[in-house]
């Protein structure tokens, strides 16, 4: 665990504060992200944890500036990439930043590639658009990147199409095109969820290696607490569009404070592979178009009190850098 200076801007590559995203749908407004904020320090890995539909991917898309609007609407108090104010950047500035300073990889690598262009064209296109290099040069650079993400016989495979690659290889190609211009930040949205466990480990190894080499910061968006614990230095746990717990990954994993985080941890199978009954979190996440006034976790929380449904618990520090948005955070223990 590295301790970075806390001064404003110092060591921080990304700052997001009070981000709100909503979607106008025929069934009413869906409040997907409700006042999310986080900082990303240079070279660190931040895990954004939560189940499907909790707003983690939407947060990433909002930071990239590629939410589909309409139907999406978003606002934030702060969104800074280093010295650049992303909220004031023009569309052209945003385009020059995306893919160059901040890159993103997605959950389904196969669906994230254009099926009718060769992988070489797709990786090389990043250089063609951002650097204006020639076709031949782009192809040469693409081969180099494919070698860097350890795609076997890259020279031969550069002119193959996505359907000729496996899922793991496709994700390597996505990684290759994401790191092409040496971004400061990589947003990895469930990068291994669609892949086998063994392939998952390979992709995470490649990401770790790239981080070591380039000092790139990673936002790992995942529902997989164990994957986050293995990879990330810090974590933010999201529930129903809010961050409910944040702090050093090791502290959260060792002593979760929010009932939701506690539930996530209890639902994991044993580390040692011993057979025991798993404890799923009872109930289902709330409908994001009808969020309650108080804490959104109340219907699923075994410790909920009357106060919880009335009052939205604010984020409060509990111990060290760990903070939690629960009225009873200091009283709860992992039973």
């Amino acid at each position, binding site marked *: 665990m590295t301790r970075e200076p806390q001064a404003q801007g110092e060591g921080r590559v990304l700052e997001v504060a009070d981000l709100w995203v909503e979607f106008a749908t025929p069934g009413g407004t869906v409040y997907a992200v409700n006042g999310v904020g986080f900082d990303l320090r240079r070279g660190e890995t931040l895990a954004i944890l939560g189940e499907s539909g909790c707003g983690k991917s939407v947060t990433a898309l909002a930071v990239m500036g590629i939410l589909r609007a309409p139907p999406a609407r978003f606002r934030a108090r702060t969104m800074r990439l280093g010295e650049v104010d992303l909220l004031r950047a023009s569309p052209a500035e945003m*385009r020059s930043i995306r893919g160059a300073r901040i890159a993103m990889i997605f959950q389904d690598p196969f669906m994230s*590639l254009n099926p*009718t262009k060769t992988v070489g064209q797709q990786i090389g296109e990043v250089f063609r658009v951002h650097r204006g290099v020639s076709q031949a040069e782009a192809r040469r650079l693409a081969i180099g990147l494919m070698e860097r993400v350890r795609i076997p016989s890259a020279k031969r495979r550069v002119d193959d199409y996505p359907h000729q690659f496996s899922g793991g290889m496709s994700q390597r190609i996505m990684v290759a095109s994401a790191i092409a211009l040496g971004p400061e930040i990589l947003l990895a949205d469930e990068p291994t969820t669609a892949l086998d466990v063994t392939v998952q480990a390979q992709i995470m190894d490649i990401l770790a290696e790239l981080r070591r080499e380039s000092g790139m910061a990673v936002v790992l968006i995942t529902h997989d607490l164990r994957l986050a614990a293995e990879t990330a230095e810090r974590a933010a746990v999201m529930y129903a569009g809010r961050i409910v717990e944040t702090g050093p990954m090791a502290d959260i994993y060792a002593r979760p404070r929010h009932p939701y985080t506690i539930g996530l941890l209890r639902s994991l199978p044993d580390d040692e592979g011993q057979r025991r009954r798993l404890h799923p979190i009872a109930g289902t996440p709330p409908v994001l178009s009808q969020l309650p006034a108080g804490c959104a976790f109340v219907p699923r929380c075994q410790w909920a009190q009357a106060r919880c449904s009335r009052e939205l618990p604010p984020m409060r520090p509990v111990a060290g850098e760990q903070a939690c948005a629960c009225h009873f955070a200091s009283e709860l223990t992992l039973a």
Partner: protein
Amino acid sequence: MSRFFIRRVWHSFVVLFVVLTFVFIAGRMIGDPAILLLGPEASPADILRVRGQMGLEAPLWDQYVRFMMGAVQGDFGTTFRYGFAVPDVATAGSTGTPVLPLVLERLPATYLLAVTAMAIAGSIALVLGCLAAMYPRSVLDRAINVISLAGVSTVDFWLGFMLILLFSVQLGWFPTSGFGGISFLVLPAMTLAVRPIGRVSQLVRSAMLDELSKPYIDALRAKGFPERRIVFRHALKNASIPVATMVGEELLQIVQGAIVVEVVFAWPGVGSLLVTALSTRDLPLVEATVFILALTAITINLIVDLVYTRLDPRVRFG
């Protein structure tokens, strides 16, 4: 050339064989060609003699073999009466102009008309479809929807007459009918283009919306590519895969539509020839025309398949 394409060529030969067989059977089913040729008042002796000359007294399978052998060599017999004012009982069925050259002579005019109509329709439909897909549910999208619905609902020979009334008779911008420079081409090509504009623009719109909703579009946006590049170099290219199939179908529809529209505009193509052949009961000429139209259809389908393999690598390697 891929194995896929060789297989498709082989299929085409099978289709052509089937079409020829149908042409043969239909030709024997519409009545005695000798009576068709000589008219209902002909004497039984004359009919018998002409049947003999036409080889109709031979067994059916023998006629079939001879018909197929002739077709393979491009010989569909000679015209019954095309070019003659009065049918000559003595020579009918034995001499006269071979029909295939007659059809081939008319072919370029029909192809010119069909390709022009398709080019007009394709380019307009592409622009309309893309605009509608880029601004879905906008006023523009709705207006384009109305245009395309009007297009698909149009009856082409009626539209042809209306265009003649407006642009030739009232405004005098284009000649009413006939064959000559580009001015003669405009109205019939526009007439034939209207329906494909409607059908193709609707498909372009839905195919583009489909492509633009796919995750790879988000991935391209995440790479900071300009929207223009994403829409035209990526989405449009992929959306053109289903569109290519429909353009092939529409081209066939245009060739079919040309049969009537050529008559409306007195366009000297295969279509008006076929109508003349039918109304004069000129069986060999009908057979040759149908054969050439079938060949055209098969060729268009082959070209579509070829375009497919260029557009979609998954077909190429499949």
